[in-house]
């Protein structure tokens, strides 16, 4: 059940009504039933797998808490982590691993059996696996207590707004919210509704429309050459952001409508002045997860400088692999890791020469009381543009169907500079350019000012007529597009 379908609208209406009508002590049951139904709508097999994973991790969590012996606690922890990670490996990486092994052995002229593994990846497995791993690790590290209520724990793992594409929630943030008796908060529900609508705008009205210009190039790279690759990559840069942040907004909005506060997942990432800053603004729930459970586990900042750099690259390589079982994703992650190492090295060199200046403060300073000079503004702008270009370039590898496709695009990107021909090849006419260009600019401007003040909350200051006019216009556009063709596109991050 995708969020932009009639079936989901009916489902959410029922859940919303029942949830707020019944007493607090039964609400976790409503959520659990809703989560089960949501999963069931995809495939009952996915549900059984989820239940199995929940049960194992639940009992491991309890066992670890009770276990005094450190060695046994470690064994339990390993078993608890191993189960969901093994399942993730089987469903997501087994085919890729065997295929890669085959290619390596073929290259070395070593015979190997031909294997064909075809497994359908269960919805949300990457996300709920990480939530479980985070939960067990936090228990192991003593940061949180195990949840004793199986039902509430199951609600945390399978919460339908964020199960399929995040944000990845921390048990320490979510589970306590299940305990608090919530009263219907009109302002919170209204804000959640606005966020849901905004997410739908980004996803349906903009991202879905951008995808057709991207797919025509990336799915047929050998039929193209020249600047069309750069343009398609640029369009994809916005497509993936609007698609994924749109989904996150919908998830957070839906959760708010039920009284829950999920982790903010995006903070105007394309205004970052460095790749490091980019990752504090992009898919925040994932980047902090990797920081806390991979980077820190590898030693974090407590090791030598070269080891820190290595840990950073490893963390991003793994992050790349999490996004997809293909070398293109690993390469994409590797680019981000290596660039951050280079950034860090250059930053340290710069700090030695100019010890009092801080770029990140400058970028935030635009909206604060910190006085920054025109030169500093220029530098911030330049850093933002460079960061954007690097991020955008890396997206090319992320979107490419294979390494050879990506390499072809890299080699041929600047063989032809004819922009109008490139736009034609992308099937983008003048009206299309105006529409998507206008919509993209609007969202970016919204994002820019959203750094200073919550734009959706600021809508309360508008006169009711204007506010309702905006809601009506936005909702009509979304509805009209949703009903057109009757076929929903899946979200980009759905397959992770």
């Amino acid at each position: 059940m995708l969020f932009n379908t009639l079936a989901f609208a009916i489902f959410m209406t029922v859940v919303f009504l029942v949830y707020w009508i019944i007493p607090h002590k039964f609400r976790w049951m409503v959520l659990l039933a809703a989560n089960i139904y949501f999963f069931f709508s995809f495939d009952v097999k996915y549900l059984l797998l989820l239940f199995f994973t929940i049960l194992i991790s639940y009992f491991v969590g309890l066992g670890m808490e009770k276990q005094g012996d450190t060695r046994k606690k470690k064994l339990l922890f390993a078993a608890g982590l191993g189960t969901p990670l093994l399942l993730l490996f089987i469903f997501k990486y087994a085919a890729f691993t065997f295929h890669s092994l085959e290619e390596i052995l073929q290259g070395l002229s070593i015979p190997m059996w031909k294997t064909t593994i075809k497994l359908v990846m269960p919805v949300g497995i990457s996300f709920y696996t990480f939530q479980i791993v985070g939960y067990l690790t936090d228990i192991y590290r003593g940061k949180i207590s195990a949840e004793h209520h199986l039902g509430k724990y199951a609600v945390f793992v399978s919460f339908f707004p964020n199960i399929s594409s995040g944000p990845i929630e921390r048990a320490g943030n979510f589970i306590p919210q299940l305990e608090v008796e919530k009263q219907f908060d009109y302002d919170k529900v209204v804000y959640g509704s606005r966020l849901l609508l905004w997410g739908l705008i980004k996803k349906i009205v903009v991202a879905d429309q951008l995808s057709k210009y991207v797919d025509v190039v990336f799915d047929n790279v050998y039929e193209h050459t020249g600047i069309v690759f750069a343009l398609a990559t640029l369009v994809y840069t916005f497509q993936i952001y609007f698609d994924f942040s749109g989904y996150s907004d919908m998830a957070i909005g839906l959760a708010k409508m039920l009284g829950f506060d999920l982790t903010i997942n995006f903070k105007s990432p394309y205004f970052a002045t460095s790749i490091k800053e980019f990752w504090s603004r992009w898919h925040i729930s994932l980047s902090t997860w990797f920081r806390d459970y991979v980077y820190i586990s590898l030693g974090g900042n407590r090791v030598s400088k070269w080891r820190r750099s290595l840990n950073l690259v490893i963390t991003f390589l793994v992050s790349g692999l999490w996004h997809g079982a293909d070398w293109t994703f690993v390469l994409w992650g590797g680019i981000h890791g290596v660039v951050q190492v280079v950034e860090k090295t250059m930053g340290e060199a710069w700090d030695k020469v100019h010890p009092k200046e801080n770029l990140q403060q400058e970028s935030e300073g635009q909206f604060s009381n910190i006085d920054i000079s025109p030169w500093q503004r220029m530098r911030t702008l330049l850093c933002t543009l460079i960061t954007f270009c690097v991020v955008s370039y890396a997206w090319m590898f992320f979107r490419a169907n294979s390494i050879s496709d990506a390499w072809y695009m890299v080699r041929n990107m600047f063989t032809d500079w004819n922009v109008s021909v490139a736009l034609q090849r992308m099937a983008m006419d003048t009206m299309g350019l105006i529409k998507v260009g206008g919509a993209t600019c609007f969202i970016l401007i919204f994002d820019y000012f959203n750094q200073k003040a919550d734009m959706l909350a600021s809508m309360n200051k508008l006169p009711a007529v204007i506010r309702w006019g905006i809601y009506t216009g936005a909702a009509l556009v979304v509805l009209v597009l949703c009903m057109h063709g009757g076929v929903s596109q899946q979200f980009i991050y759905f397959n992770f």
Partner: protein
Amino acid sequence: MKKYLLKISIFALLLLGIIVSVSVIIDPYNVFHYEYPVDNGVEANKNFIKTKYLLKHSDEFDSLVFGSSRAGFVDVASLPDGKYYNMSSSEAVPAEHLNTLKVLIKNDFVPENVLILMDDISCFVNPALHEEMLYRVPYPTGGFLSHLEFYRKYCDVITNLEALQVILNYQEEDSAYTRRFRESGMERTDIAVDFDGTGHGGFWAEYYSLRLEECMGEIRELIELCEEYDINLRIATNPLYYKTYANSAENGYLDFLEALSEVTEFYNFSSFSEITTNDANYYEPSHFNVETTKLMMDVMYQDWHNEELLAQGFGVKVTKENKDDFLLFLRQQGEEYGVTLP
């Protein structure tokens, strides 16, 4: 919560009201105006309109003609054994005839006679494809939600606005359109024939794919349903334009005819004959004309026959006794005409 629910309900109703109003007013496929469909330049969803109309006026008819749009020229008034209604619709296939018949029977309309005209469309077209073609979406058979889902497809404002361009630029050509829908379900019969097949390669659609097992299952179910309700069932295969017939034969159409002969008797008009090789009998490579249709009805209902045409495979009543010889004849005839059979 009451304040929120009240506001959101009014808001939702307002949005739905706007979308539904636009859709009902434009209604390019006539699904909201099935009682009085209009000739607006857009192909109507005839399956839906005719089924709805028949359900409301079932006392006026006792027999049905099913088929694709090719069956649209059957003059129902000329059929002597009942008061027929022509249920033909664009690219209709046996699964949809079965669907419609079940709906009618469920609503207490049991026809005395049913004539089904079949051809390559019957075995090459997957009915699932029609779910997304607004002029071919089959009549909804489920309950309230099924009907809601059906009408939801027609509340596609973008499609409706695009259709509006066509409607506004269209000059009505057929003043009897509404009357024909209500009285007979037939297509207009006064279209001039002006077809020159030179250079035409015969009709063939990209999405055609032989689905023999599935369509035979649907046909068997149709036959069983008619037997159960004592419906007099006649089946005939259409006189495909010879180039269209050749395309179909190369993709397994004769296998379909053979399979059909295993489950039922039928009148065959599909072959290389004087009729099918004459461009004057066709409007274009897909639709045979009114005169050809009349000839078919004369064979089936007036026992008219022409030895020469019979020898060419046109009008042969295929039965258990002659099916093997007849199918062999068709295959040999195909080879003589240069058809590469699968």
